[in-house]
């Protein structure tokens, strides 16, 4: 019995220690003034993290938008309210699915790639040799990836939402025959700029920070072996996904708490 308590205690302490190290990595990377050449590094990372994620984001968005329209239509048609399908789909996407699904996809594709890359650089002594040459790897390798992640998430979410709504429109209006005026009019009438779009973007911003931070830290902290990198990438995907879902719940409560 005592042994389990001790293990639990050790695990908790290990976790808190990791949080401490993660905070150090985060602050030290983001602190400090930008230098010449930093823009190039950032640009390259935005390409790796954002542009290369576009395919999966766009494909998923279109599918999800289409499916939402299909399912929504079926249910709403029962009570003659098909025209509201535009509004329903838009609200669900903007408030919840857009940020969350984009976050999960982002963690799986970009997050794991970043972790693997940094982990590999650590395992092959590239980070160490950089340090010995007087270059701070936190500034040169970690910071651009962190900033790129923070920038890309909201952009990807906006693209996801737009493509998904477009997909739902194609299915709803062109395919299922919902009246275009009703579809878009109902949507415009019911969707609010700040409440729905704005708060959804805030969610995506928060997710972006959290996912990037986890991805970058897991890579930097990984054991410098092949197994270590594999463990680290898994942790990034799992921790990020759980964090996104948990934060979504909390943020939804906080932002939309008026459920009277």
């Amino acid at each position, binding site marked *: 019995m005592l042994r389990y308590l001790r293990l639990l205690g050790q695990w908790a302490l290990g976790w808190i220690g990791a949080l401490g190290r993660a905070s150090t990595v985060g602050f030290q990377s983001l602190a400090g003034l930008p230098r010449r*050449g930093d823009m190039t590094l950032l640009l390259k990372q935005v390409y790796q993290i954002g542009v290369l994620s576009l395919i999966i984001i766009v494909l998923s968005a279109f599918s999800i938008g289409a499916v939402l329209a299909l399912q929504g239509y079926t249910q709403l048609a029962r009570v003659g309210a098909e025209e509201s399908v535009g509004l329903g789909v838009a609200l669900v996407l903007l408030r919840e699915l857009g940020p969350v699904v984009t976050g999960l996809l982002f963690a799986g594709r970009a997050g794991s790639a970043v972790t693997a890359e940094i982990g*590999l*650089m650590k395992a*092959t*002594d*590239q980070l160490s*040799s950089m340090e*010995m*040459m*007087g270059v701070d790897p936190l500034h040169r390798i970690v910071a651009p990836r962190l900033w790129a992640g923070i920038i890309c998430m909201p952009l990807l979410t906006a693209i996801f939402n737009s493509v998904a709504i477009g997909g739902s429109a194609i299915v709803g209006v062109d395919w299922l025959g919902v009246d275009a005026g009703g579809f878009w009019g109902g949507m415009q009438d019911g969707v609010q700029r700040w409440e729905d779009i704005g708060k959804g973007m805030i969610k995506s911003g928060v997710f972006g920070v959290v996912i990037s931070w986890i991805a970058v830290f897991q890579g930097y902290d990984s054991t410098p072996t092949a197994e270590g990198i594999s463990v680290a990438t898994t942790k990034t995907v799992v921790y990020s996904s759980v964090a996104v879902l948990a934060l979504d719940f909390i943020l939804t409560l906080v932002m939309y708490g008026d459920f009277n």
Partner: protein
Amino acid sequence: MTDNLIEIEGLRFSRGDRIIFDGLDLVVPRGRITALMGPSGTGKTTLLRIIGGQIRPDSGRVIVDGLDVPNLSRGELFELRKNMGMLFQSSALFTDLSVFENVAFPLRVHTNLPDEMIRDLVLMKLNSVGLRGARDLMPSQLSGGMARRVALARTIALDPKFIMYDEPFTGQDPIAMGVLVSLIRGLNESLAMTSLVVSHDIHETASIADQMYIISDGRVIGEGTPDILRDHPSTMVRQFMLGSPDGPVPFHYPADTFLDDVMGDA
């Protein structure tokens, strides 16, 4: 200005429960090639990192070129590292940069030289390791020996006063080994550098080292020129120098007697 570039006194360092260094003393004289040898896992790479300021020891003095390394500020450490080079065992080339860019890296970081000058310097350094023609290749396209030579070119890009080599000869074919040996010796003489070589390879290292240290159990157990060490009073030193399979470092991992083990299962 002392005669010794590096002086280490009473170095103590542990990682977790393992004591890695327990009162280590050594000096690295200027302008010479000094070798650090010892059984695997004695922390030789860790020692290089302590000298480079990446790791702080628990106690002891580490003086490099008159500077107290463990207590330097970030700015001072940055300056020190300009004059220090380290060649890693895995060559540690930046995989996303070409050979040319790898060698140019320290120049771009530490100097404000115009591109034409950087180009000339990089080509010069690559020429001295014989790889000027490979400048547009990516690290993944290089063989192990070539990668190490490029890493060496990168290490000497800023003409450092002092270079540390971490296992430079490991896993190299005889020709590549010969090339590296001659490069290390040649560079040390022509650029009036000080070199610290960590290695297992007795033969290669003995052929270029001016003096050697044998480290075991966190301390120096033998020092001197290769000839002195071959006739050293300590049996462990002799075992290491001669490469005998059995001696103070035993062949058999601790176990019951053979007879007991075999009969026990019957």
